């Protein structure tokens, strides 16, 4: 089956530090999404980025579809950035719609 691997699995940062999270996927993508799961369990959409680079405030994401990876950059991290970051590969369903295959997640903790 389709594999979506994320690294690192765990990350501890001091507030203000920068980090890069990586997502590798085993098959071509229709789209790729990055999510932040906050401590209350909510999945917050960060980016959908099939290719290229997008930026939103302190976060940016780059997907290189031909090499089957995506990167999420967090700059000047804050304690509110803590949580689990998931990437998810979107593939087409023959019956209509898309299916997200989630990665294994990166657990991020930002400390004061």
């Amino acid at each position, binding site marked *: 089956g389709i594999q979506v691997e994320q690294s690192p699995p765990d990350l501890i940062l001091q507030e203000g530090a920068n980090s890069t999270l990586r997502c590798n996927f085993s098959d071509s993508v*229709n*789209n790729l*999404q990055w*999510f932040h799961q906050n401590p*209350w*369990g*909510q*999945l917050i*959409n960060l980016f*959908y980025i*099939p290719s290229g680079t997008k930026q939103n405030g302190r976060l940016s994401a780059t997907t290189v579809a031909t090499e089957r990876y995506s990167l999420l950059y967090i700059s000047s991290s804050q304690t509110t950035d803590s949580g689990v970051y*998931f990437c*998810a590969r*979107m593939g*087409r*369903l*023959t*019956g*209509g*719609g*898309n*299916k*997200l*295959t*989630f*990665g*294994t*997640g990166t657990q991020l903790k930002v400390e004061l």
Partner: protein
Amino acid sequence: EPEVTQTPSHQVTQMGQEVILRCVPISNHLYFYWYRQILGQKVEFLVSFYNNEISEKSEIFDDQFSVERPDGSNFTLKIRSTKLEDSAMYFCASSERTGRNYGYTFGSGTRLTVV
């Protein structure tokens, strides 16, 4: 920004009981989904729904599960006879269309605990 709304946020039920999880997708979206996340694990696809029928389901989505869009706004997931292993966070999601420029919007989830 439009939201996907899920109710209840938490539900505790006894093993063998039926539960219905409710979702109100974004109004102009056409594709609807349920996913689940067992505690500490990754999020898994359950089912997709389009044009008033299931378009695809995973092997997790067995005969105990069903989905319905009863009134054009609500989208429900029913588990007929809950098991302990059904305890998980259940997420509803919707998307406007398929294609590279259309992503998912997830609801806040329903945490189901089967005792």
